[in-house]
């Protein structure tokens, strides 16, 4: 009887360890998926930008701080194109819809965006550093997380994508 009980206890312990390991794997997978997700932008609107621009704070990740800053700039432009910016609290700014209303634009124009977002690519034309918020740098386990304030030349970016036929112009078809 004692042997049966011992065996049962061992089996329960093994099952518990398995569940914990599986959960940990799932957590890791989720973290990886979120890290690689093209929808995962950490962005906040700071205030209404001057004519045709958007003033935002955006976060990026990288092994070095410079990589994280570069990633943040890329995220800022990608967010303007695919996700839009949220409203700022306290009535400081209304939300901004994305330039591409078509949710499949990234896949449909894969080649264009690969070139657009390559290191030193055209996306940098539409990002200007702003001194409204001091840069933030957080050292994480094996990498850095950096937050910067940037001014996005939103109207110029929209016009470029409309010209390329990627974004639909308001007067298209009329």
């Amino acid at each position, binding site marked *: 009887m004692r042997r049966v009980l011992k065996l049962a206890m061992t089996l329960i312990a093994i099952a518990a360890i398995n569940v914990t390991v599986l959960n940990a794997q799932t957590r890791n997978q989720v973290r990886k998926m979120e890290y690689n997700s093209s929808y995962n932008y950490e962005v906040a609107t700071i205030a209404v930008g001057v004519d045709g621009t958007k003033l935002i704070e955006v976060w990026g990740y990288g092994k070095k701080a410079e990589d994280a800053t570069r990633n943040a700039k890329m995220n800022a432009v990608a967010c303007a194109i695919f996700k*839009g910016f949220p409203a700022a609290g306290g*009535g400081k*700014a209304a939300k901004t819809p994305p330039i591409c209303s078509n949710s499949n634009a990234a896949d449909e124009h894969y080649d264009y965006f690969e070139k657009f977002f390559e290191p030193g690519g055209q996306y940098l034309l539409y990002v200007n550093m702003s001194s409204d918020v001091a840069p933030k740098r957080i050292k994480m386990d094996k990498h850095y997380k950096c937050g910067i304030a940037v001014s996005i030349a939103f109207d110029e970016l929209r016009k470029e994508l409309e010209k390329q036929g990627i974004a639909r*112009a308001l*007067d298209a078809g*009329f």
Partner: protein
Amino acid sequence: MKKLILIVVAALFSIASYSQAKKPTIMVVPSDRMCISQGYSMKFDNQGSEVVLPDYKKAFQNDASLRLVITKMSGIMADRGFPLKDLEAEMKKMEQEAAEVSMMTSKMGSMIAESPIDALKRTAKADIIMELDYEVKQQGPKQYITFNLKGLDAYTSKVVASAAGTGAPSTAAPAELLLEEAVLSYMDEFNGRLMAHFEDMFANGREVRINVMVFDGWGSDLEAEYDFDGETDELNIFIEDWMAKNTVQGRFSLSDGTANMMRFEQVRTPLFYERNGSQRAMDTKKFVTDLKKFLSDEPFMIECKVYLKGLGEAWLIVGEK
């Protein structure tokens, strides 16, 4: 053979790419509430009851901030390919036109023919009205703006786009700067919704209103029976059948109907039609003219008059021209 196919495909493509839908006109109009609360109003005695109406001319002549907001909005909309109709300029043009029509004569001394309806139609109008409402409010030493912008389809009376909110309070910034900030803040959201409206229009057709009425001298009504396509039914049923056949995905709703009138709402008309092998932009007048042609053919043989109310509304008056 391959060449021939290529030519046909290229021709079809060029037709498709050059055909363009009728562009709606947009005009900014200050809301009744804003005009009346700021004293830009006119009072009328309408058979004993007092009617208060906004006085746009007075508002434009006295309110500098209104002009600033409209100019800012016009710039943004022109940049997006939609130059706005200016209400102030439109009103001046109407006044000038009315004066010219009343003065003009031919060498023989004839005046320009103008029915009371023609005179009534000579008003400033647009297909989409951007109804603007804002107020500068005070909170202790701070000022803030409440901003409300509605895009109204002039024919269906539906709100096709909107943006509203309250700005952040400020002690330092003047009201004009806060207003400018509000316009910059809300216009992208407004245009995003307007874009969604246009995308829906291109996918499901233009939403219009059509009224069918009867001239009292006709001597018949919409319940008169006819034999058509092997069926005997009332005229209003055949008109409904025509609507179902000619609207995009058969989408329309008959919101009201009697022996003397039918009111069709949410009628989705196609944006294009084919004529002489090429695609042309469809408007409500063309759509209703097709219905008129249907009724003038056998077995109905009814004379009708088409009365155009704008890009999105037309009336068909049955019985006479």
